[in-house]
Structure formats: C-alpha cells, structure tokens
C-alpha cells in the first residue's frame, strides 16, 4: 500500500467532522457545547479553577476563528480557559486526552476506520524503507503536520502493543534507532534524499518529542489515567537541592517571597482594632484642601516582627534544604527584629555572622562547612547533645516574645532524642516551630522521632517553596489574625 500521509485528508479532520455531526458552519451546536462542558468538567477535576464566565468566553471566542484548524481550536480554548503556566500544562494534557478519546468514540459510532484513512495499525504492509525516507523528508522540511502523522505510523510499525519497555524515553530511542535517524551525513543515501547531508538536529529532536507525546497518549489510553500531573507540578516547586545549588532559583524564591510578604496581609486590614493616625501625613494631605484635614492618613500596620532563633541541621541528609532555608531567612532579615542562626550536626555553632558577611549563597555554605566545626567524630546528628548545648547558650535570652525555628529531619541515628531538653527550650520561648524537609509520609519511619518533639512545638513539612512561603506567612501574621 502506498504511504502518503500528506495526500490523504487529515484523519483528524474527518474524525472531527464525525464528532460534531452537525455542519461545521455552526460550531455552537448542541454536540460541541456538550463536549466543551464535559471538557471543562475534566479540567476542573484536575484542579484548574474554571468559572462559568471562562466557558462563556470560550463559546464567544470560537466562532471568531477558523476553529476547525487544530492549532487555532486549541489555542483559542487555552487563551480563554487556562490562565497560568501551570494551568496551561494541565490544559494541554487534558486536551490531548479528552479530544483523543472523544474523536475515537465518535469515529467508532460513525464507522470511520483506521484502514480507510490509509493507516494500518498492524504495520504489516508498511514499506519500512519508504517510511524512513518520508520521515527524513518531513524532518528536513520541518513539516510539523507530516511529522506528527509519521510519528504515529512509526509507532504503529515499531512498537508492538504490550512490548514497550514501560519507560517512554527508552521506547523513543529504540524507534529512533530503528528509523536510522542521524544528524551525521549518510553516504549510502542517494539523490534528493535529505539524509545524504544529515538531518537537522533540531528536527530530529522535534520528531523525538512527537514520538514521545504519541507514546504518552497511547499509555494514557491504555491505562485510562492522566499521568501524575499534580505531583510533577509539586516537584517543580521543590526546594533547590543537590550539590550544585541553583543560585538563580534561590534568588527567585527570595525576591518572590519578599514581594509576596509585602503585598499579603491586605486582607487583615478589616480586623485591625485601632489604627493610629499619622499626623504628619494627614497635615500634608490637608494642604490640598486648604488646611482642612478632610482625609485622615493612617500609619500602616507593620507585620509582627518576631525575635528569631533559627536552628538548622546541616548534616548531609538535609544540608541543601537547611542552608537554603537559612539564606532565605537572612534575605528576609528586615522582616524580623532580631535574628540569630545556629547550625548543628553533633555540636551546635552560631553562624549569624557568616550570613552578615557573605551575601553569596555558595560562599555561605562553604564557610559553614569550613568554620562551623559542628561535626565531631562520627558526622551523624546527635540531637540530645545539641539540645543540651543550645540550652546552655541561649536559655537566658529566650523570652515569651521570641520564636524558635528548628529545621531538621529528626533522624537521631539511634541516639537519645532528649525530648525533655527540647521541651525546656520550647517552654522558655514564646513560639516553637519545627520544619521537616521530609514529606509527611516518611515521618516516624526508621529513626525519625519527630513525634516526640512535635509534642512541644508546631511541626510543618517544608520541602517546596510553597510550604516555605506558607510558613513565612504564619510567622509574620499579626497575632490578631491568628485567632
């Protein structure tokens, strides 16, 4: 059978016509309306905040564009329905899944088969060499539509169902190798075959992406579930970690946090008991009205500025999270009245000075590793000893207006937790928080003893910037709003 994906009418188009059995000129018939509403429901199910007004917008927008073009249709819906980059990512996944399934079902109903469209999923009759040549041509010409069709064909030819490795990347590479797609010039190719000069790298990459997408779609179809979009999104916001710290990431988080801290708290305004009139600004404002103080100016409500004692575990298991956390705290220094930082592994050591001296994140972690002298012999965390030493150092300075924050995984390596000493610390301080960089799922497993400390403090999990942000909010909330 000759292979001409570019000559036959697009499979998508004929199926879409089947899907919306009414004439195409009237896009807002009942069929499409119902489908769009269903689509909206699925988006909501995946956590996109979608209002009726957004759906109405989509309905108003669709007649304005040539909506039977796939790209137009998708982009129009995206512009009206998905209003943030995160939502857009979810939108793309749901869109693929939803309209793929809807077209398949409509196709079944109206009896449009694969064979009639010139595609034979069995692949038995496909001429593999023709397929390779067509793919090479499509890649050289950067023909997106042809590449997409050919990716489907290639998968049909090479990926027998049930034989996939389960890892998409492996399957993609297997198919690419089978297709002999290489960027290097290939001598044996002849004539106007683009492979003679090698294929553009970017084109091959694009084709690989299409292959991956198509495989992913098949997987979704097989398992009837959306790949873990939510967890992925969470992980993207995870705290930067790893030996080579993502400096830019830290910087971004800090600037965002600062600005959010400034802009948040507006909602507390109504709760405010008494506002102080700012005499100076009221007088100045009154000049505009001839010296009559018509508009009163108030002093802004400053967020609560706690006195902070931050105590961080810097043993290897949590070091990246804790150093990051310390630098964020110090970047936010102006939000707090007074702040002292300690790091510990087996012993405890004060590092407030280091943060004042060094602005660079990497320099800070180097200095801590070099000078702090917190590791003694084994290099394993010893919470019991740390509480004892800390109590000696700061117990006279703790008072009810001070806040103690501990960052650590509460893994004692089998040593004595000495929760009683921690209790004494917590008792002297006004508020005590524990931030655990491990997901809540792992708490109290193995040598984690977080529960014995959690009796004396509020424990939070803190492994994404979102957690961190929420925590900083809790920390700076005015006392009144907490009740």
């Amino acid at each position: 059978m000759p292979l001409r994906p570019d000559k036959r009418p697009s499979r998508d188009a004929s199926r879409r016509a089947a899907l919306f059995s009414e004439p195409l000129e009237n896009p807002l018939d009942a069929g499409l309306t119902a489908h769009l509403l269903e689509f909206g429901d699925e988006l909501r199910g995946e956590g996109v905040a979608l209002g009726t007004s957004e759906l109405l917008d989509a309905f108003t927008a669709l007649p304005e564009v040539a909506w039977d073009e796939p790209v137009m249709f998708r982009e129009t819906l995206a512009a009206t329905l998905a209003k943030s980059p995160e939502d857009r990512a979810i939108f793309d996944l749901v869109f693929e899944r939803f309209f793929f399934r809807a077209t398949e079902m409509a196709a079944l109903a109206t009896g449009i088969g694969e064979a009639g469209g010139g595609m034979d999923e069995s692949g038995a009759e496909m001429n593999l060499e023709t397929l390779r040549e067509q793919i090479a041509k499509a890649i050289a010409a950067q023909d997106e539509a042809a590449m997409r069709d050919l990716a489907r064909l290639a998968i049909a030819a090479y990926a027998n169902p049930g034989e996939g490795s389960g890892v998409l990347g492996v399957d993609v590479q297997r198919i690419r190798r089978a297709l002999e797609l290489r960027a290097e010039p290939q001598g044996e190719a002849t004539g106007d075959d683009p492979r003679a000069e090698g294929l553009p790298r970017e084109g091959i990459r694009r084709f690989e992406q299409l292959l991956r997408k198509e495989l992913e779609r098949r997987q979704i179809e097989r398992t009837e579930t959306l790949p873990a979009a939510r967890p992925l999104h969470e992980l993207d916001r995870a705290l930067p970690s790893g030996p080579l710290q993502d400096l830019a990431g830290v910087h971004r988080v800090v600037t965002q946090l600062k600005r959010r801290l400034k802009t948040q708290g507006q909602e507390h305004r109504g709760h405010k008991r008494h506002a102080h009139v700012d005499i100076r600004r009221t007088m100045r404002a009154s000049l505009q009205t001839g010296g009559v103080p018509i508009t009163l100016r108030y002093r802004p409500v400053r967020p609560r500025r706690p006195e902070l004692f931050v105590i961080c575990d810097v043993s290897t298991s949590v070091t990246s999270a804790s150093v990051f956390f310390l630098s964020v705290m110090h970047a936010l220094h102006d939000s707090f009245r007074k702040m002292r930082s300690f790091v510990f592994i087996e012993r405890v050591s004060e590092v407030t000075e280091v943060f004042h001296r060094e602005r660079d994140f990497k320099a800070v972690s180097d200095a801590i590793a070099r000078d702090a002298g917190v590791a003694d012999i084994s290099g394993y965390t010893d919470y019991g000893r740390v509480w004892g030493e800390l109590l000696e150092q700061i117990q006279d300075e703790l008072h009810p207006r001070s806040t103690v924050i501990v960052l650590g995984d509460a893994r004692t390596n089998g040593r004595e937790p000495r929760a009683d000493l921690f209790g004494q610390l917590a008792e002297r301080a006004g508020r005590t928080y524990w931030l655990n960089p491990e997901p809540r799922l792992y708490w109290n497993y193995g040598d984690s003893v977080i529960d014995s400390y959690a009796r004396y403090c509020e424990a939070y999990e803190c492994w994404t910037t979102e957690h961190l942000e929420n925590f900083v909010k809790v920390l700076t909330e005015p006392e009144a709003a907490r009740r």
Partner: protein
Amino acid sequence: MPTTPDRPEDVSSGLKEVGYLPDDATALVAYLAIKLGKPILVEGPAGVGKTQLAKSLAETLGRELVRLQCYEGLDEAKALYEWNYRKQLLRIQAEAQDIGWQTVQDDIFGEDFLLERPLMTAIASPDPVVLLIDEIDKTDQEFEAMLLELLSDFQISIPELGRIEASTMPLVLLTSNNSRELTEALKRRCLYLWIDYPSLEHELEIVRLHAPELDAKIARRLVEVVAMVRDLDLKKPPSIAESIDWARALLLLGATDIDSKTFNETMSIIVKHRTDIDIVAERVGVKLDAAKDDASAASA
C-alpha cells in the same frame, strides 16, 4: 492595515510590518481580544517583548498607546483621576461671594477641574486606544480590585460626576512577570497569553529583521549562543532586545565570527550581572573554543 482585522493572519502580518514577529498564539489571542473586546493578560519571563507587543499593536492598529506603569503603592489618584484642588480653591475664592453655594458646587465638580490619569484618558478618548497596564503584579490587591470595574464594563464611577462610560472600546493589555499570584477575579476577565523565549528559528528571524546586514552565518551562531546562555540559569537571562543589540554591536565591530575572544569582549551586552558574567565566561567561553577546534579539525 485595516483598523479591525478579519482574520488572525491579518494581525500577524500587521505586526510583522511594524517589526514585531508574533508566534501563532500571540497573533490569535490579539485577534480575539480585538474581536471580543476583552483584555489580554500577558505573562512570561522578562524581556520576551510583552510591552513591545502592546506598542506594536498600537502602531499597527493606528491607535494611540496609553501606558500605565504600575508600582507598589500606586493608587486611584495616580491611575484614574484626581480633583484639581488648587484650581477648585482658586475658583471658590475668586467668586464665592457673588453666587450661591449650589452653583459653585456644580461648577467645581465639573470636568474642567478633573485631572485625567492614564485609565481615565483611555476611557474618555474619542478614538479607540491601546491601553497598556504594565507590570500589574507590582501593585497591591486593592488596586487590582479597582481595575475590575474598568476591565469588565469599561466604565469608571466618579461619585460627583456619575459614571463615565467608554465611548470607544480600548484594547487593554496587562503584563505581569508572575512575581505574585494575581487574583482569580482579574484573571477571569482576561484572555490569557503566555509568551516564552522564542525558538531558535523564530529568534533568528527576529534578529535578521532588525539587523538585516548581519551575515547569516553569524546571526545563526548568535542566536545559538544566546540560547546556550539562557539555558545556564542566570540571575537575568538575556532578553530578545539584548540579542538584537548584540547583533548590531557585532555589525558595528565588523566581526566575522563569534569566537571566544569576540564573545568575551562583547558579552557585557547580553549578560549584566557580575556573578552571571563569571558563570557565562566559564561555561560558554569554553564551549566556543571547543566548537572552533572542531570546525578547524573538520576543515583540515
């Protein structure tokens, strides 16, 4: 260029004429915004041409651009309107004795005593305008709430004068660097457009459009290097405007190739942070040398 485009392609070609190369989504969303009379919320990293989009749209549609730059603490008096107190006072003092209070009151709260600020200008303009509300994420939530009335009904309520409704429909663009989550209510009223850094080919086209004399080979090399630099996770990745600047600078210097020497000399055009410069010099400079060695080995 007709003032109301009939197809997304019209917007696309119109924008191209004034030196802005939009991708399909951008042209489509702009077209929809014009057709439906809805504001566009444009988000994306800094330096991908969000503000320029508004300027180019204004130019291609033949409309005036009214710009409101947002900052922390921006309030109604600076964004909407303000009563001209001094003039009102003068008016009262000049004639208060002769005529009744009612007349004076009617008079001093008239349009003569109103100072128009950008939002008001956009609404009251007799000709349709393009209204650019830049960096909306820098304002506080109160200001956003105030915008809602404007964005959904295109009207402003002034207690003393009543409602002022837009006689013509302005095309509104809001830009945001996503440094703060905008409220759902605001997002709901807008079409959403995310602009990312352009693909290699797309950026090449942009550079070629703005520096047509630059050799094709160098232009390609340039966008490749810029893409490489953007991958490095810098404090401030180079913007499109900076790639264009760099292209022009290379043109002026008469560079024939981008090797590590030229790169180190001109790097400051695209990288503007001390720590960034170190990282870029270290990573990209080395790569450039390696690429050059490869090329000479291949030719030999």
